[in-house]
């Protein structure tokens, strides 16, 4: 090769680096093996980009993806974006209401300090908190080692295991006045263990949904985070004929101080910005 080696690398080493880069561009990282760290400064993506440009030049993309793939990919990307947004707010949330653990305290956190640019996406959390506070007066306190859930055996055992932990919180889930929630006030419970970052939502009396039209989405208000950005707890369905369901809580990011769980109705695949239609809320007391 006639190219002059960059400072700090001899010609033989440069050949080695170029060979490694070419292998990476054509065969993938695995085939290329491991490059010594001392060459790290010389590992640009020029050959990868050259291979990509050549690929497109030689074999122009002409295929059109299936129409259904668009919804699937964009829904997944929204989940990723939601997680990234939540993570991005983490530094701002440090020191803010880190000890808050009641719905009342959560409400204080939710109603203060809204950024004007995001006020449209935060107002509904104020509403959620208000509902939660109103429900506190009559929601029964639940024994963490109370009745077993009427769900499948695997769910039973998982919940039983979670209940054994002293740090597991169990809170009642209350129906809103949305017609999709047909239970009489209490429509289930939330079990949440912050240490293990595990939890379950048991829901009953909530109408079955057609996943092609709408889905339910769980949200978690974390008092240790910026209240404008609740944590996405996952999207789920209520199958027809199921009076009671058990939903594993899949928090997109770590939840340190859960203050409120809320279930909303969203478009298929869930959303980053909620439609603000609640069917159930569970304030942590």
């Amino acid at each position, binding site marked *: 090769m006639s190219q002059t080696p960059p400072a700090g690398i001899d010609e033989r080493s440069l050949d080695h680096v170029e060979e490694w880069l070419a292998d990476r561009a054509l065969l993938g990282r695995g085939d290329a093996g491991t490059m010594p760290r001392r060459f790290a400064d010389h590992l640009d993506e020029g050959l990868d980009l050259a291979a990509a440009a050549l690929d497109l030049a030689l074999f*122009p993309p002409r295929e059109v993806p299936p129409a259904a793939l668009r919804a699937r990919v964009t829904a997944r990307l929204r989940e990723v974006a939601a997680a990234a947004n939540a993570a991005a707010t983490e530094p701002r949330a440090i020191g803010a209401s880190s000890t808050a653990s009641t719905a009342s305290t959560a409400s204080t956190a939710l109603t203060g300090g809204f950024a004007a640019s995001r006020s449209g996406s935060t107002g509904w959390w104020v509403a959620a908190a208000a509902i939660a506070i109103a429900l506190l007066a009559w929601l029964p306190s639940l024994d963490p080692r109370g009745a077993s859930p009427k769900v499948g055996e695997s769910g039973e055992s998982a919940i039983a295991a979670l209940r054994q932990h002293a740090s597991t919180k169990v809170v009642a889930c209350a129906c809103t006045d949305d017609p999709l929630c047909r239970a009489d006030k209490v429509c289930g419970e939330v079990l949440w263990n912050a240490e293990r970052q595990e939890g379950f939502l048991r829901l009953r009396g909530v109408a079955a949904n057609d996943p092609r039209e709408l889905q339910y989405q769980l949200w978690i208000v974390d008092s240790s985070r910026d209240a404008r950005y609740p944590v996405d707890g996952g999207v789920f369905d209520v199958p027809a004929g199921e009076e009671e369901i058990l939903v594993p809580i899949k928090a997109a990011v770590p939840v340190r101080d859960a203050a409120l769980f809320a279930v909303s109705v969203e478009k298929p695949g869930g959303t980053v910005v909620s439609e603000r239609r609640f069917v159930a809320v569970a304030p942590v007391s």
Partner: protein
Amino acid sequence: MAKAAPEPDPTPNEKPSFDGPPILPRVATGEPAAINECYDRFGGLVWSLARRFCANPTDAEDAVQEIFIDLWKSAERYDSSIASETTFVAMIARRRLIDRNRRRQRRPPMPTLPEQSAAPEESIGQAEMSEDVRLAAEAFEQLRPEQKQVLRLAIHHGCSHEQIATTTGMPLGTVKTHARRGLIRMREILRAQGKLVDEAGNRPGGDEA
């Protein structure tokens, strides 16, 4: 090369379009509205690559999803002074597709006379591609015949060096040399044209062909 932004929800038979206003910077900032636009812009490109690398449509759909997640996470690395968005997306896609094939310990079926399976001269003229892709086609024509043969097998079909050696009858070491020098030559030509720069901003001249 700037064109109007694609429609947000293209019909299935609409021809894919890859040019348009920059979108990766918006992806990098996590702008929710950029999700659909990003897919509409590059879905056809990614899908076409995935179909070529994957054994069946189901695998391709899974791959497309993984690629867009990679793209979402990598968008902040994109530098418009180094390459076009189209080339950057294709690089991310190729990387994921090659890794998927490696993980599954199987490669696409060996081609039968693949060097003539797609005539570059015909295809290039039909492509509505970015400038660096057009220049890549021109640069490719400047390579030695054996370099072109090896790169076409490696890039289009994902063939390993060993598979190329078997297909062409070249010694394994010769295949590796042609692949490396051909690709390096491509990079140098593109850099000389100002369409690819290294991360230090250098545009070195070409070396041996």
